[in-house]
């Protein structure tokens, strides 16, 4: 064979050999999960928080009939916005995006949403003075062979005495818990799959705006507000939901996205009752009290972060990352501290207690420059009842059991149902939203 002939044949064979099998093989593989699944039934989503809204968004993209039932008078769940308090908008709920390697990180890039890494500097209230460093290392809650005991107990074991109590309370507060209730082992184990990154981002506008504009805006016509679902009867082929005013809603599938305290406290009655192991699993997932108090001053006398207060273990300069710079200090109060402040009974008393603490730290400057406050107490919201879920001592696989669907009809989403390390977060809630739609469609395919 002549070289020219050989090369010609080899080229033709190669092109044919490449194109034909690759085209055939590639066409056998679908680019999108559950691409061909069609569903004519109706899906009801309970709760218009991040998980419910995202589940709805996915259902809409798949052309599936759905409706969202929301108990409160607005959507967003533990996201909220206040425009009138300062010369910049304030997030009343979730405000930090924890790591950008997430679906919301992609959405931020796509929507050109302005965010900045929160690199604020911390001062510690330690032994009755503000200091920039602590004598002992407090980074003790990560690693191997950690015990299933509370943060406060473990800190004592590691030689962090009573003087570190509220420093540790702040670390636990980041997880939405009291240091006496959060499990060292459980929290560490649950976060093993954390994959979104360690930087915390603040929004120039608000977190709420991102969810509102990019997700909720696409499904808001399907949200029925002020609808408190009190009963779910899934004993028949058709699921019947009853609200607090005895209105009925019918569906073929239900996705429940309500916060874990709503499930724990039995605010929704299930027929037949939920399996015992699921109820036990709910009880193992913690959710403590939580509130955000915004304090407005006429001078900026405070540090960017103040950690270790006995009334509030974490204060943060709210203006960081914002386009304007009104002097707003956020008191981020979690766990037992939030319970204490809630028990004071009214917002004035809460504000007074916080101002007193800041006065102690800053020689009376807080009261002297105080203008106004806004208290957002998530604990007293009857449809939320707390901050966000945390790993109680003995949590084990509770989240995995809690999020399992029932009879291929009832599905569970929401940040507390996130089993891949992103519980407590908005992006974690979003992940459960699409995860449950995948589970639902998989069940249909079966």
């Amino acid at each position, binding site marked *: *064979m002549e070289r020219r002939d050989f090369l010609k044949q080899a080229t033709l064979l*190669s092109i044919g*050999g490449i194109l034909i099998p690759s085209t055939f093989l590639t066409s056998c593989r679908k*680019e999108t999960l559950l691409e061909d699944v069609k569903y004519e039934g109706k899906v009801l989503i309970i709760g218009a928080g991040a998980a419910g809204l995202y589940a709805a968004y996915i259902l809409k993209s798949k052309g599936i009939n759905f409706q969202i039932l929301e108990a409160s008078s607005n959507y967003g769940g533990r996201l909220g916005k206040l425009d009138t308090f300062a010369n910049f908008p304030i997030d009343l709920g979730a405000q930090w995006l924890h790591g*950008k390697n997430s679906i919301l990180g992609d959405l931020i890039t796509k929507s050109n949403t302005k965010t900045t890494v929160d690199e604020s500097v911390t001062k510690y209230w330690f032994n009755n003075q503000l200091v920039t460093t602590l004598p002992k290392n407090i980074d003790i809650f990560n690693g191997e062979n950690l015990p299933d005991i509370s943060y406060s107990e473990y800190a004592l074991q590691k030689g962090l005495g009573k003087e570190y109590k509220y420093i540790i309370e702040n670390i636990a507060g980041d997880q939405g818990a009291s240091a006496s209730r959060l499990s060292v082992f459980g929290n560490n184990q649950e976060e093993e799959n954390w*994959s*979104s990154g360690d930087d915390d981002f603040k929004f120039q506008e608000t977190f709420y705006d991102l969810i509102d504009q990019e997700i909720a805006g696409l499904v808001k016509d399907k949200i029925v507000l002020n609808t408190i679902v009190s009963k779910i009867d899934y004993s028949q082929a058709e699921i019947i939901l009853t609200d607090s005013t005895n209105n009925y809603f019918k569906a073929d599938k239900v996705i429940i996205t309500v916060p874990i305290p709503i499930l724990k406290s039995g605010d929704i009655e299930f027929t037949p009752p939920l399996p015992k192991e699921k109820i036990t699993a709910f009880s193992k997932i913690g959710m403590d009290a939580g509130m955000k108090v915004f304090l407005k001053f006429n001078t900026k006398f405070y540090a960017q972060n103040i950690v270790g207060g006995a009334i509030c273990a974490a204060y943060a300069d709210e203006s960081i990352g914002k386009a304007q710079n009104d002097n707003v200090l956020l008191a981020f109060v979690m766990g037992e501290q939030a319970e204490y402040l809630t028990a004071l009974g009214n917002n004035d008393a809460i504000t007074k207690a916080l101002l007193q603490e800041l006065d102690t730290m800053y020689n009376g400057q807080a009261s002297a420059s105080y203008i106004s406050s806004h208290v957002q107490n998530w604990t007293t919201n009857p449809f939320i009842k707390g901050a966000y879920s945390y790993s109680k001592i003995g949590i084990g696989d509770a989240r995995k059991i809690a999020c399992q669907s029932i009879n291929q009809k009832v599905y569970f989403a929401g940040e507390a149902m996130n089993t891949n390390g992103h519980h407590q977060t908005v992006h974690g809630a979003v992940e459960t939203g699409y995860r449950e739609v995948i589970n639902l469609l998989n069940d249909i395919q079966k």
Partner: protein
Amino acid sequence: MNKIRILYFLLLNCISVSGQELKIEASYEYLYADQWDKAIQTYNFSRPFEKEKQPLLSNGINTSISYIFKNEKHFKHGINFAYSFFHSAAGNENFNNNLNLHFVNLGYFIHYENAEKWKGFYSDLIFSGTSSVLLRNVNGAPYRYDNIIAKAFGVGGTVRLKLGYYSTWKNNRCFSPFIAFAYTPYLYAPNNERIINQTKGLTSKNWTGIGMVQIGLTFHLRKQE
């Protein structure tokens, strides 16, 4: 050009001293990795805001160099170094997402040819260690979080069976078209889902099996008898 001549001379010299044949390959490679498929499929499912879907990581190119030692008449053995590249790109408004997957294989192989029975055909059975790195590129820049370029490494082992056909040898050189099938039963790549779908443990396992099909052309350079 002089550099190429010098390199060529060095290679010839190298073969004449200790080896028998040098093979340089270029090929198209088709990849199937079920767990990475799941991660990309989930990515596409979960992001309706991306109109153009992310293609699966399936089409790539491979290049390799093999060195056959002096050995028995029909059975020979040698070492092989291979590099593969797979690419997946989806262009969307404000969001161009690319996945770049690189493989490096370093292996040992057994070469069989029998001019009397097999005519011009030959086969290679290659056992290699495989390492991979998956990178993401968003809007033309390497994807970063926590100020570090995001990457996911993988490590495993691959067995590859290759069948080729020699064209006419001329001055101890020839080309051979070939087809190869490769199987990686276990590639430990715990962070690939983190790069593809920005999750870990949600869509897929931390390892995957991989099947590959290769079609290409080999250039053979054999020692002067």
